[in-house]
């Protein structure tokens, strides 16, 4: 039957184009495609490794920065504590000084007041003496109008002086 007998002509026309296609594709197409895919796979593999390395690097940098931050925090706390301490000290000293100053001022004020007081008293005394002398003068002027009373007076004064 014709269906099952291969035609010589078609055998020829099949063989030649197929061999040509095979030659062309084997030389120019398949190596390019297979190598291209391989190259891309290699690139992907390398990229994955590089990405993992970058990730590790990043983690390390992050750990470093965390350590630095921690250190800074500790130092900051120490500095703050120091500052608080020295502030307290300064306040203490200042308070002491202020107290001393205050007592000093108070003492001098008191002295001043005493001086003033004495001064005032002295002045008052003087005023009082003058006043009593004036009064005595007036009293004496009235009482010594009579001779007898003058004599009495003189006597009494003399007695007093003697007694005194």
């Amino acid at each position, binding site marked *: 039957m014709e*269906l099952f007998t291969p035609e010589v002509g078609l055998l020829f026309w099949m063989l030649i*184009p197929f061999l040509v296609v095979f030659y062309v594709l084997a030389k120019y197409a398949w*190596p390019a*495609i297979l190598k291209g895919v391989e190259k891309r796979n290699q690139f992907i593999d390398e990229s994955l490794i590089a990405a993992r390395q970058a990730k590790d690097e990043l983690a390390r940098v992050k750990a470093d920065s965390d350590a630095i931050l921690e250190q800074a925090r500790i130092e900051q706390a120490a500095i703050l504590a120091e500052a608080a301490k020295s502030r307290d000290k300064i306040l203490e000293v200042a308070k002491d000084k202020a107290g001393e100053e205050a007592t000093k001022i108070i003492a001098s004020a008191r002295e001043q007041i005493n001086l003033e007081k004495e001064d005032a008293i002295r002045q008052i005394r003087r005023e009082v003496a003058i006043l009593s002398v004036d009064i005595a003068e007036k009293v004496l002027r009235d009482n010594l109008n009579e001779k007898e009373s003058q004599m009495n007076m003189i006597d009494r004064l003399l007695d007093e002086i003697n007694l005194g």
Partner: protein
Amino acid sequence: MPLKNRSYFALILLLIFTMSMGALRAEEQEKKSFDIKEMIFTHVLDSYEWHIMTIGKKNISIPLLIIVKGEDGWHAFSSSKLRDGQQYNGFYLSKEGKNKGKVVTKNQAGEEMRPKLDISFTKNAASIIIASIALIIIMLSIAAQYKKDPIRPMKGFGGAIEQLTMSVYNDVIKPNIPNDYQKFAPYLLTVFYFIFLNNLLGLIPLFPGGANVTGNIAVTLILALLTFIITNVFGKKEYWKEIFWPDVPVFLKTPLFPLMQFIEFIGMLTKPFALTIRLFANMLAGHMIVLVLMGLIFIFYIMMGVGGALGISVISIAFGIFMLLLDVLVSFIQAYVFTILSAIFIGMARPEERQVQKSN
């Protein structure tokens, strides 16, 4: 994407319609009597001209080159010179007998006989050339993209080809050929795409396709023979030892009674035979079923008139679409199977060292 789906559907309908046109032509020629066998064979067999369609009574076909070697040397002429029973230099198309439809000539005794050699550029030859050129253009354009920038991932059609190529390369070629699979990859990839493209082209009833190339035994025979040659040329000594001095009791392989050698030798030949028949029969059957389904319309028309034809055409077209879609799948599977079997045969002739030691 409903619009796209609809346009595919319309395309398939159109294809089936043109197939029916071909059947119609056969019907018109036979005048009201429809010879389905004739119709099918004109479609699945090779021919000297490429018939495209028939409008009214006018056949539109592309004449191809007839190259024959007669008694007086080579002749090359257009197939249009032999149309409608014309003769040219004593050559004409036989009307009946075992050479029906072939170029024949008369010998001195006046008997009809084939010329000494007929290497005419037939419809199948033209289809092979078209497929070959298409394959080379497609693959070289994709290869050019790899040369330009291999890192950039392929998109679209190129990406699909890459996936297909790599799946054949990694799943078929690599596991089946233990030694030097790289050496055989170009041949097997070429075989795969060559068969696949020709299968698909054969499913398109319009001009660039429609030739039943891979359903022709000459085509599959060449492919199988190439695999056979490669298997034996690159076979290692373990392979030849298995054929000429296999591991069986000595009395089965003595020169006086070489039973095992005989069996092994037959086994050697059955491999290309199986490859030839498998691809050929599968593709031929696919074409035939679709043609029978379309032919049913005309058989029912003759038997029951227009109503019968309309009724059966619904079923025929539905099944025809189904069969064509199935044939798309079969096109891939057969190309894949041919490649797998070729890879296995080549791989079996090149066993790994370890396996040989185990069998010893």
